[in-house]
């Protein structure tokens, strides 16, 4: 049971880190951004590319991989997403899905389609109540809590954060105060994308890295965002861990149903509390 709990919290932590950026962009820009999954994939591949140059050191390679998301996400926001503000949600889906497909093909062209395994960078175990747990997974859980706290402080205590919180609620009203909302949305998009890349990096040693890994996580991330509430940071946090636990517990009893159960929960939440996109 402790193993299931730890697995659920690990998945929840990673889902939170990936989904929170999606929630921010969905909440502020009302853009369904499928390209988020590409950034997640690029994060994992950038880690693989950086590791040999950094003597196999995971932490500096992680920093480089996350930074690789900055120019890529800026270009996506500036030249694709920004043109979609206020347009029908269908256009955003089509355009960002196209970016995802093109990106996946480029990834295949550079690194090939063969899955690349990565070893546990910590490779140590902690004994809790007689159960041996990988320290790496506990670090992921701690990092997700750290990301949550950092975002809370950023959004509640800094002026930029307050602009974002206000923008999540009413973009026009922020603009009426003389604030260039698009500039801050771009910043939020880049921060959210860096977190997606960070999620890709963290998940790489648990799974294998392959060009289609983003597709797997994309729908799960949308489920997290929808269950947590569009643009709700705390909701996304709770939702990620609840759905992570749902996956872990379901998987323990019936493996093939683990992901399906996430969407059952999502459907129930949407029936009880429909959203207005």
């Amino acid at each position, binding site marked *: 049971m402790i193993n299931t709990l730890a697995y659920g919290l690990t998945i929840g932590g990673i889902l939170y880190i990936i989904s929170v950026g999606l929630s921010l962009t969905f909440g502020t820009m009302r853009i369904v951004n499928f390209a988020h999954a590409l950034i997640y994939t690029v994060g994992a591949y950038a880690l693989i590319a950086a590791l040999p140059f950094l003597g196999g050191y995971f932490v500096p390679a992680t920093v480089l991989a996350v930074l690789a998301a900055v120019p890529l996400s800026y270009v996506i926001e500036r030249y694709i997403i920004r043109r979609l503000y206020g347009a029908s949600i269908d256009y955003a889906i089509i355009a960002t899905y196209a970016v995802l497909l093109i990106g996946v093909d480029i990834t295949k062209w550079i690194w090939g389609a063969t899955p690349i395994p990565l070893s546990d960078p910590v490779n140590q175990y902690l004994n809790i109540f007689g159960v041996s747990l990988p320290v790496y997974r506990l670090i992921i859980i701690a990092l997700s809590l750290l990301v949550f706290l950092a975002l809370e402080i950023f959004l509640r205590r800094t002026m930029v954060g*307050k602009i974002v919180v*206000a923008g999540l609620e009413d973009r026009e009203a*922020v*603009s*009426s105060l*003389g604030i260039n909302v698009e500039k801050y949305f771009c910043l939020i998009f880049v921060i959210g994308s860096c977190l997606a890349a960070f999620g890709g990096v963290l998940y790489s040693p648990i799974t294998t890295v392959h060009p289609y890994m983003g597709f797997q996580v994309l729908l799960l991330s949308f489920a997290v965002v929808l269950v947590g509430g569009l643009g709700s940071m705390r909701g996304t946090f709770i939702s990620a861990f609840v759905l992570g636990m749902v996956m872990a517990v379901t998987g323990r009893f019936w493996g093939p149903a683990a992901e399906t159960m996430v969407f059952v929960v999502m459907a129930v939440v949407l029936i009880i509390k429909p959203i207005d996109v």
Partner: protein
Amino acid sequence: MLLSVGKLNVFYGSAQVVSDVSLEVDQGEMIFLVGRNGAGKTTLLKTISGFLPSGSGKILFDGADINGKPSNELALMGMRYVFQDKRVFTQLTVRENIHLAAYPFKQKASEAEEKVVGIYPEIVRFMDKKAGGLSGGQRQLLLLGRALIGNPQLLLIDEPTEGLAAGIIDQVFRVLKMMKGQLAMLIVEQNLAVVSQLADRVYIMQEGQIPRELVSQADIQDQEQLEKYL
């Protein structure tokens, strides 16, 4: 002339909502825009303040052509729009709402707070409460105070007394009266008592056009006459 709108046309898709509208607002004037629901008043205000694109026509503010400029740039130029539906940032405290308005103008937070307290002293009791907990009237007064931060030259105010209780309308009326003469205002208003007591001039809006302008105080204070346009 501070604001000059000439032959402005606005469309929603193929439907024309504003047709050949011209109006002017001079420094310190309080001008009202009166008309039935759906006459195009809010669309006109939102187009002037950069929230909606115009089909054609001229909008000059302080001598500069501002047609097509985004709302945030116009706010920095000194034109501020106060929305119809009392849109405060409910997740932020009242103080944070005020500080946010001061931020683009690099105005000191304390000075910005003083500005709002100046027109609505009772707000000091709610400074650290979430703005979402304010009543409609309190929100409206906060919005009016917030719009004054950064010393704008022109306020465009959309239905400031709509949906408010009589006592609160009096308060909003007092604030508008206090602001009168200090800066120019173009106000959409259905409350004719407010219009007749405060207006320097009134534009009547009907089906996207301005067929009449009331200039004399005798016409403006004739509420029965005004009612025909609502």
